[in-house]
């Protein structure tokens, strides 16, 4: 299973690189090739505007990875900072920050993202913003919980009594111990951000035409399911395999890095 997940991941990462190198013609419209089945010219067939599905899949995954990585990095930075501060200081700071977190947690994430995009307007920038606004909460809760228990560890108390500053305590003595658990969380959120991006694009609120996005391709593909099933199948299977691989990768990381599971 590990090898399976890894090989799919490597496959898609290679696809991103190949896409970068080849310089794809993903937006070239050919009205004579509309919904063509796979052929020597279009290996995976053509979409509803005669564009090469393979090229669009490769372009779509670049968008997917770009959005997922940017959103994950930003949400992690914000969430971990909030969580560390709340867990470290406790008391009123903790109560205040956690109240805010709870408010965000009370909304269904994707609905909040849809609302933000509807207000801000569609487009990749606003999409990233909307996903960031809703995504940091899980990191904050996770980091806070861990920090609370790490706060009173001997080595932290020792460093504190030796006069270490708060930033030094947080970055040098607490954060490294959070590393593994955050890594696992990041992997899962990578997958969920990809799904969220696809969902918003599926609703027409994400990446704007003519740029390729798997969500938008799925939406178009569904419309032609009866006449050109290859379109929706190719995109659906691609998305499924990537998300599955990332989640399996996350499971593997958790097994390796989470001390609690190992002890069991």
């Amino acid at each position, binding site marked *: 299973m590990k090898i399976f997940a890894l090989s799919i991941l490597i496959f898609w990462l290679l696809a991103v690189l190949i896409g970068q190198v080849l310089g794809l013609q993903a937006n070239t419209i050919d009205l004579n090739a*509309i919904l063509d089945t796979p052929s020597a010219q279009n290996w995976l067939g053509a979409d*509803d*505007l005669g564009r090469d599905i393979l090229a669009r899949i490769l372009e779509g995954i670049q968008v997917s990875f770009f959005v997922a990585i940017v959103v994950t990095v930003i949400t992690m930075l914000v969430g971990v900072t909030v969580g560390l501060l709340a867990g470290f200081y406790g008391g009123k700071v903790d109560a205040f920050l956690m109240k805010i977190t709870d408010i965000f947690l009370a909304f269904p994430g994707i609905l909040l993202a849809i609302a933000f995009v509807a207000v801000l307007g569609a487009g990749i920038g606003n999409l990233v913003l909307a996903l960031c606004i809703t995504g940091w909460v899980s990191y904050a809760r996770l980091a806070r919980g861990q920090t609370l228990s790490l706060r009173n560890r001997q080595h932290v108390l020792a460093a504190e009594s030796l006069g270490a500053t708060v930033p030094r305590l947080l970055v040098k003595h607490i954060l490294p111990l959070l590393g593994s658990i955050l890594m696992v969380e990041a992997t899962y959120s990578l997958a969920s951000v990809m799904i969220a991006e696809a969902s918003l694009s599926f609703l027409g609120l994400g990446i704007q035409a*003519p740029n390729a996005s798997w969500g938008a391709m799925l939406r178009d593909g569904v419309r032609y399911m009866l006449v*050109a099933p290859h379109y929706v199948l190719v995109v659906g299977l691609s998305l499924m395999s990537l998300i599955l691989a990332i989640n399996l990768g996350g499971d593997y990381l958790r097994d390796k890095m989470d001390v609690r599971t190992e002890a069991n």
Partner: protein
Amino acid sequence: MTPMLKNFPAFLFAFLLALPLLIACQKSATPKQEIRFGIAQAPLNLDPRYATDAASERVNRLIYQPLVDFDATSKPAWILAHGEAINALDYKFTLQKKVNFHNGDALTAHDVKATYDSLLSLKDSPHAAEFANIDTTEVIDDKTIIFKLKQADTNFISKLIIGIMPKSLVEKSHTFSHNPVGSGPLKFQSWQHDLKLIRTSDNQLITLQEVKDPTVRVLKLKKGEIDLIQGDLPPELVKHLQTMPGILVDTGLGANYSYLGLNMQDGLLKNLKVRQAIAHAIDRQAIIDKVMVSNSRIASAILPPEHYANSDNVLIPYSYNPTLAKKLLIEAGVKLPLKLEYKTSTDAFRVRLATIMQAQMAQAGIELEIKSLDWGTFFADVKAGNFQLYGLTWVGIKTPEIYAKAFGSDYFPPNGFNRGRYSDAQLDKLLAEENWPAVTQRIHTQLPYIPLWYEGQFVAMQENIKNYTPKPDGNWDGLAIIETSATIARQPQKAQLQ
């Protein structure tokens, strides 16, 4: 004892058990089979004083009858009454036939008065402004009514298309919106999830079922869960249906005008050459041939060529010529590539068309940025003039007054539909003269809209459905005469899921 008699109690029991089933079978074998019509969007309001969405207007045409309707060339045609202008301000109408409402009341001039008076008294009716010019209405006798206007209006007769409602119910503030009572060929029966209508002439039951997703609509038609569908399908699915055995597809010319609206206050788009360049940068014939249903045709004016206001008018469509377009842009002193923003709804078909136009315009040095917005935001932006280009379709337009409302300088929203804020003294003069051929010609050369096409109409139905043809404006008038023949075996009904 024979085995039969020995088991008599068991037989009796089985018979009693089966009895309701037998009765049910008998019931379902009534000669008039329900006709189920799959529609993309259910009507919102069946009160003709309030209805604005296409589905409601199409249903209202069948439930109610107006004084006047339009013929094939969009000239007013008499329905309930004949009328004439007594002088510039007074119009006299005489009811022609003896007509009864569905509740049994006879339709008289009092009902006509009650309908129009209530329309005038309603402040929140979207149609009230249209009739603000009516000063008073006066009933002479049961058959005769006089409308007195405040100002002369030569098009007044063609405005009387509001369905007549019974006076007794109007006075009681009856909720026509969900319980309509009219005098048309179809009588309202019930409206839970599906809208059920009964044809008064032969008790034929007609059900309108909302099925939003086009693929699901096609599947339901294929499975025999609905009997016909009309419009709102990608052309690929229409072609797919044409190959299906047991399904008939009928197509016809359309009269609904699709266009690109331009913001005439925009620094770049103010320049006629830029607008001409855009018109020459779109290969409309290629789009029609490849991604639209058959019988779609290139448009040059809001009203189609067969319309009476257009009949002697020859408008030469703008040809696809990217080289010329580029040349025009350079002459206009525009720095290439010219960047423009195009707003459209999130509807997949609209985005698809926008993407093709984007690729075509790129050839002419125009970089089109597509913004697909949810319908509410999009339409609000269009009304507010917050756009460079937008794409929309005029549905069911019959009177040439649309030219004044869409382009007259007195008709900026909210007074009219001049969303591009186009202001042209020469056009205003022609509009005032009601010189429609000259108006159309002027608009065609000045290009406040880039004309696109009239999308073809089509209907797909089970092969036992007869007497239904698509109409140019997409209305459902065929439901008044549609037939289902019981001779062709129908596919078994699926279990009722709802």
